């Protein structure tokens, strides 16, 4: 792949520079001209096409594949099956670390879920490989599949999410409920959902001598590299992964799944470069999903509408062969000041691909249930939903009692409500109509997402010509890493952004950590911050120790880097350019590394979360039950905003996911076969343009000195939380019908007319 040239965008499209500025995307020119190269856009010479065949049963064993028929098809080169495949260096069932998921690498004939890869057909053309896969016409020994939230005996998993305790409590929930003046006890269900990034998972892979060259979208370059290394027994430095652009990830490209491994196996088998791209329907299985949940919430309040207890139990599912448990009940840990809180989970195993993190894992599922329950409780108390939330505002994190590192939620409520016009809302449902007679409803939800930090490293350099370099293996899946991280780099290096060569998206660069948990900008940004500071310190050392420099004797702390120059803090007229410093020192460049990591002391002391308030208006046809969101306002406080333009886009996207959660998305599983009956984009509904109303985002100013050096909390996921509940609550307010099974369907709203 040619070196990315991100500065080719016409200059007039840029608006200012560096942190806090709404720069347009530096990769924008490439993306609007079709020149941005996604994995499947690569074509190494001699490349063959590989197409996966997947299982149509959910449980059992493959007993026969018509390999001969596939091989007879003109253009088919080989068929990779459990009997005919290169050996892996380790068993793909072994979990070598918690971030490794078990995968199907044709190591067995066993079938554990529908759409599981069972063979790979390799051919000269895509058409031949595709038909070859169809010709395999598998036969099976079928066993009854486990399907649904009641599939079998439930159990309490050891942990939920990524290492969260399965149960948490503070205070005595039963006593709190017993003492309550009013109570609600409500059960909500959320369906299986699939990430459905627009870009299907893909890999283009080839051997370059003894090195493996991989084009593959990944949210975790180093994790993927380590997984490939262990599976194939290759040294890390013999693997090169390029992932300059992801066509969306949402968690599904976070950890290496089976399909790209099959691509690498295929290239080993046939000795030629391979392109393997999942078909859309094949994305409903081996690449993760959001597990379904059934959540019971019991809330109690005193005579003044103060919560006395909050009990949140979530049932979820994992696969029959691995463990990921949607931590839905954890959503109740942080938002509402109940003196007694208990959260708990249990699970059943079903014949499904292993669930995975999907944009706001746990937070999204938990939020729609919690925010619905809060709305129901407010109504039971005869209170306005916002007044009820303010009455139960948590000044400290309820589950831990820790102070918040910062929390501007009150301002979010105020500014969001004012912009929306919430004060005019009727308390009673089914009171408002528009000019066309459609029912109008207003609902709200509180948004929250933890401010996480992972580990990252960056390398910074200042070159002889005075320009800068910042290298970090960061991932741009649409959130805007190419731009936001470059803005941070420019600030840290004291350079205009066009003077910084910002390198990201390949596995040979320093580890940026995983792009997930809304933590990438914070984590990678902290590493960039620290690397930038370190290289400037080295440069300053050269200058301040040299008596020929106007900075001589200033000391490292006594200089500031700005505009490609170091100047004295006490006299900014005295300084010199980076180029001058390096020229005199006779050094080609100075470089330094820096790391970003969580601060355990701060984590011990503070609860760290981003917050927000979302207000939604829906219109519902009073007789026909069709729903459309007509307006949404979200006010979010997420610490420092690096690029307001892209932050707004991220928050819009999250709000649309929330809307989709409430009204659209659902994988429909045939309860007899365990097959997903709408594994496509025609019937698995994600919102289309016409579903999305004018959106309004307010970013509430918030300074957080504790979360990380830059004060960044992250915005990738919080937009879903709050929004899903706000839309669901608006549907109730419009119709008077409380739907507790999501997505809300037309038939649920036909009860009245």
């Amino acid at each position: 792949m040619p070196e990315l040239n991100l500065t080719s965008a016409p200059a007039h499209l840029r608006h200012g520079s560096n942190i806090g500025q709404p720069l347009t995307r530096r990769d924008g020119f490439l993306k609007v001209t079709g020149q941005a190269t996604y994995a499947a856009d690569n074509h190494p010479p001699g490349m063959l096409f590989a197409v996966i065949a997947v299982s149509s049963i959910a449980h059992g064993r493959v007993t026969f594949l018509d390999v001969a028929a596939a091989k007879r098809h003109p253009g088919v080169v080989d068929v990779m099956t459990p009997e005919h495949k290169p050996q892996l260096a380790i068993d793909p069932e072994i979990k070598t670390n918690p971030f490794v998921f078990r995968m199907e690498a044709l190591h067995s004939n066993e079938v554990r879920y529908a759409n599981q890869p069972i063979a790979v057909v390799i051919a000269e053309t895509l058409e031949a490989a595709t038909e070859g896969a169809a010709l395999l016409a598998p036969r099976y020994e079928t066993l009854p599949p486990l399907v649904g939230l009641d599939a079998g005996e439930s159990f309490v998993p050891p942990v939920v999410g990524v290492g969260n305790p399965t149960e948490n409590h503070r205070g005595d929930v039963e006593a709190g409920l017993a003492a309550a003046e009013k109570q609600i006890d409500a059960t909500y269900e959320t369906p299986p959902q699939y990430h459905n990034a627009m870009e299907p998972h893909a890999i283009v892979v080839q051997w370059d001598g003894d090195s493996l060259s991989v084009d593959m979208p990944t949210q975790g370059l180093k994790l993927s590299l380590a997984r490939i290394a262990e599976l194939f027994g290759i040294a890390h430095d013999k693997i090169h992964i390029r992932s300059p652009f992801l066509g969306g990830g949402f968690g599904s490209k976070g950890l290496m799944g089976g399909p790209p491994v099959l691509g690498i196996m295929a290239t080993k088998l046939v000795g030629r470069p391979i392109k393997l791209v999942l078909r859309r329907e094949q994305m409903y299985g081996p690449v993760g999903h959001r597990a379904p949940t059934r959540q019971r919430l019991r809330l109690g309040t005193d005579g003044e509408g103060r919560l006395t207890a909050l009990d949140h139990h979530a049932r979820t599912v994992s696969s029959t062969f691995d463990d990921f448990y949607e931590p839905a009940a954890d959503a109740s840990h942080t938002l509402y000041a109940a003196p007694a809180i208990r959260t708990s989970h249990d699970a059943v195993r079903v014949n499904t691909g292993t669930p995975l993190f999907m944009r706001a894992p746990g937070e999204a599922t938990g939020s729609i249930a919690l925010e619905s329950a809060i709305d129901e409780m407010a109504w039971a108390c005869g209170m306005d939903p916002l007044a009820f939330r303010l009455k139960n505002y948590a000044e400290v994190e309820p589950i831990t009692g820790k102070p918040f590192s910062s929390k501007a939620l009150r301002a979010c409520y105020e500014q969001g409500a004012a912009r929306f016009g919430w004060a005019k809302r009727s308390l009673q449902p089914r009171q408002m109509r528009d000019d066309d007679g459609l029912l109008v409803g207003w609902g709200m939800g509180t948004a929250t997402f933890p401010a996480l930090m992972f580990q990252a490293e960056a390398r910074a350099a200042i070159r002889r010509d005075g320009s800068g370099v910042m290298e970090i293996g960061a991932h741009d899946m649409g959130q805007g890493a190419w731009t936001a991280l470059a803005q941070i780099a420019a600030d840290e290096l004291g350079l205009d952004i066009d003077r910084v060569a910002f390198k990201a998206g390949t596995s040979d660069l320093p580890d940026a950590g995983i792009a997930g948990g809304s933590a990438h900008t914070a984590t990678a940004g902290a590493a960039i911050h620290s690397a930038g500071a370190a290289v400037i310190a080295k440069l300053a050392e050269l200058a301040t120790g040299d008596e020929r420099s106007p900075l001589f004797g200033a000391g490292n702390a006594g200089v500031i880097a700005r505009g490609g120059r170091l100047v004295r803090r006490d006299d900014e007229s005295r300084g010199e350019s980076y180029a001058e410093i390096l020229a005199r020192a006779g050094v080609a460049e100075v470089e330094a590394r820096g790391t970003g990591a969580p601060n355990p002391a701060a984590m011990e002391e503070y609860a760290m979360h981003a917050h927000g308030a979302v207000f939604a208006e829906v219109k519902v046809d009073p007789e026909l039950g069709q729903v459309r969101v007509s307006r949404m306002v979200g006010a979010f406080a997420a610490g420092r905003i690096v690029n307001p333009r892209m932050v707004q886009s991220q928050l819009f996207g999250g709000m649309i996911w929330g809307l989709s959660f409430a009204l659209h998305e659902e994988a429909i599983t045939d309860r007899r076969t365990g097959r997903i009956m709408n594994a496509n984009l025609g019937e698995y509904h994600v919102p289309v343009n016409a579903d999305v109303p004018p959106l309004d985002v307010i970013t509430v100013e918030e300074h957080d000195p504790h979360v990380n050096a830059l004060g960044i909390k992250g915005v990738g996921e919080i937009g879903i939380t709050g929004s899903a509940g706000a839309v669901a609550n608006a549907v109730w307010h419009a119709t008077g019908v409380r739907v507790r099974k999501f997505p809300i369907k037309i038939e649920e709203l036909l009860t009245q007319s």
Partner: protein
Amino acid sequence: MNHSISLTVNGARRDFVLDDPRVTLLDLLRERLHLTGTKKGCDRGQCGACTILVDGKRINSCLALAISHDGADILTIEGVARGDQLHPVQAAFIAHDGFQCGFCTPGQIMSAIGMMQEAQAGNDPERIRECMSGNLCRCGAYAGIVDAVLDAQGQMDETNQRRSA
């Protein structure tokens, strides 16, 4: 059986011998002509990522057999800008942040250009939303897309007025 076909792709006439009638316009562009700006999101006409203009009209290239379009005039995302000079729709997509991951973007832009030529939506945001609903965006950039289309439509209307004045 081989079939000879000719297409005009982004202004240039291309003659091919097609060895397989199963090849769609999308796979022809991507895998044989290496014009990979046009994306495959679903391959079943359900996402719009593969939108191109054929004889001036936007269609899903995944559901079009190349062989059946012998003689067609095709415009893809690669043929929209003139060098560094972006089409107003392209520039507006950048200015209004009408994308995030960018994967649906070539299809969105081709669809927007096609929509403007159809002249059914004008500058009515609601009609634009409806007329752009054949292009899914999972990142949720719809607000920016509508703003970009409105902006580009406005610019092109202005240019046309100036020309006709």
